[in-house]
């Protein structure tokens, strides 16, 4: 398989993730789209790792997963908090940044 195929595949996944974040208002869905983008990057890293025959990239993927797991735990806690406060997960309600 040429490397381009993986390149384009991960690009496509990444862009789908971006479209998702732009289209949806549900905070959880947006969060899932971010996970999707992370996975797209992981996929590409593994492909490069195979291409160069180097294990370091795979270790990096491993660390990305570690960080993602930590990030998800905190992020979901924040979303739960937000839901408790405003009884909604709609990000348009969160416009405090304006003030």
């Amino acid at each position, binding site marked *: 398989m040429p490397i381009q195929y993986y390149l384009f595949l991960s690009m496509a996944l990444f862009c789908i993730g*971006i479209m998702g974040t*732009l289209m949806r*208002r549900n905070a959880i869905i947006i969060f899932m789209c971010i996970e999707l983008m992370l996975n797209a990057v992981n996929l590409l890293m593994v492909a490069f790792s195979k291409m160069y025959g180097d294990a370091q990239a795979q270790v990096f993927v491993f660390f990305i997963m570690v960080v993602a797991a930590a990030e998800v735990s905190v992020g979901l806690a924040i979303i739960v908090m937000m839901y408790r406060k405003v009884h909604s997960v709609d990000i*348009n309600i*969160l*416009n*405090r*940044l*304006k*003030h």
Partner: protein
Amino acid sequence: MTQLVYLIPLFPLLGFLVNGIFWKKMPKNMGGIIGSVAVLASFVVSLCIFFEVKSDSFQGPVVVNLFEFINSGKLVIPFSFQVDALSSLFLLIITGVGFLIHVYSTSYMHDDAGMVKYFAYLNLFVFSMLLLVLGSNYLIMFIGWEGVGLCSYLLIGFWYKNRDYTNAAKKAFVMNRIGDLGFLVGMLLILLNYGTLSYQEFFGQLGSSHVAVSNNLYNWIAICLFIGATGKSAQIPLFTWLPDAMAGPTPVSALIHAATMVTAGIYMIARSGALYSLAPMALNIVAIVGTATALISASIAIKQYDIKRVLAYSTVSQLGFMFIALGVGAYTTAVFHVMTHAFFKALLFLGSGSVIHAMGGEQDIRKMGGLGKKMRVTQITFLIGCLAISGIPGLSGFFSKDEILAAAYAHNPMLYYCGLAGAMMTAFYMFRLYFLTFHGKFRGTEEQHHHLHESPAAITIPLMVLAILSIVGGYVGLPAVLSEHHSLMAFLKPAVTNFDPRELEHGTEWMLMGLSTGVAVIMIIFAFVRTKTPNFSPNTGLAKVLENKWYVDELYDAIIVRPIAALSKLLDRFMERSGIDGFVNGVGKGVRWSSDRVRLMQSGQVGSYIFVMVIGMVLLFILGFFWVS
């Protein structure tokens, strides 16, 4: 022994640190003892070094390297001291007179709350002055130079609660700074052209031809250094600070403004004699400025009523004499006069301090008179000082002043006549002061009269020591007609490059001596007659001009101070307020205005931010991949 020279400034420095750090907690007497002992220790070391320098085995100047002070590229300036005849003589004067004044101060300042602080300043001053004369290059001298300037500021404004006194301190500091700038420029000129500031290296290169310089350069360097000297030694045009500096405690006036600090300029020029010998134009300027200063300040002193102010102007006038000597190339003579002047002027100041002490702070001689009956020791010592400064034969002032006049006559008779006129006025105003203070009837209040008393031993003993020195101090330099051996000149010969003074005929010299003695005696008698019936009616005509010091302060005020103040106000209004402030405030206002507009773009919704971010990413990609490559 010469290797231990660093001990001399070290003791006062330690005294300063101890007194300065613990001044709040220390008992008052303790501060005085520490300060005096520190200077005494330096004096002892100075004596040892002086005798070593005087001995025949001493070979040329010794440079003691302490550590490297500046090392930057080609410029290497060590922190080192130079021991030779000139510096060892000054060491003796500074530490000796300084010690006496310290002892005097322990009594004089006894009732002052800030006594320990006072001694800390005094020690710092002695330290700076020692650094000034000990340094083996101009930079070390400059450190001491600035140090004494700082200390004089601190001590003049010692009673800082009085606004006039702090103003006087500021005036002294600013005047000194003007001169210091000249010194600095001269120093940098030397550094630029010779690459060194060390005396020995610099003077060694002066005559040699491998530094291609014109006579002009010598003149410029010499004039710049002389500007520094006019500031420190109170010459025209920077002399007005010294009379005002009398605001400080009287021992300070004696120490700083009579015996030591003001002689820094003389020392510097005597030290740079090799340079000045190559700069005839600068020498002429020195002589002319010295003459003018001697005459003008002596004329002012005639009509002053403040006892310390008379002495201050007399100091300026005597400094003028020293500069005349320097200007005609008789460096040794100038140093000779520095020495004798240090004795009798310190004596006079301390005597006036004793009088002021007895009068309870009164300084106006119109309110004194007849003090001699109550204060015998003060009167006699003061009289000796007056006789010495007036140039009565047998006392120290006669020998040094006569030597100056003789050198001036040999150089140019015109200088001699001016100098004679100055000496004439000196005799008159000193004895006017003496008669008004110690003779006649008491003119003060009854309470003051009741209070009059002789001062304690700590005050009178230094007076007596200084009186003895004022008498015998002149015998180190007997004139040629009396003795073949001029011991001071012989001593200073290796250190000071003297012009060979043109030998005068013995007959001429006798005549000159007789003339100056004659006018001095006539003036003393004249002063006695004039003060027999004191008349203090308001002055008119020339006397009024003299009383107001030739209106020099007013002149400076009108020519320099006020235009600058007006210009500053103008700049303040137009440059500062509307220019710089306007610009700064304008930037602030602009940012505020534009941010008021820009914040409308913020919706506060996360979605729109992500959207904008993606757009930005796209643009960056386009830029990065298609545009740049």
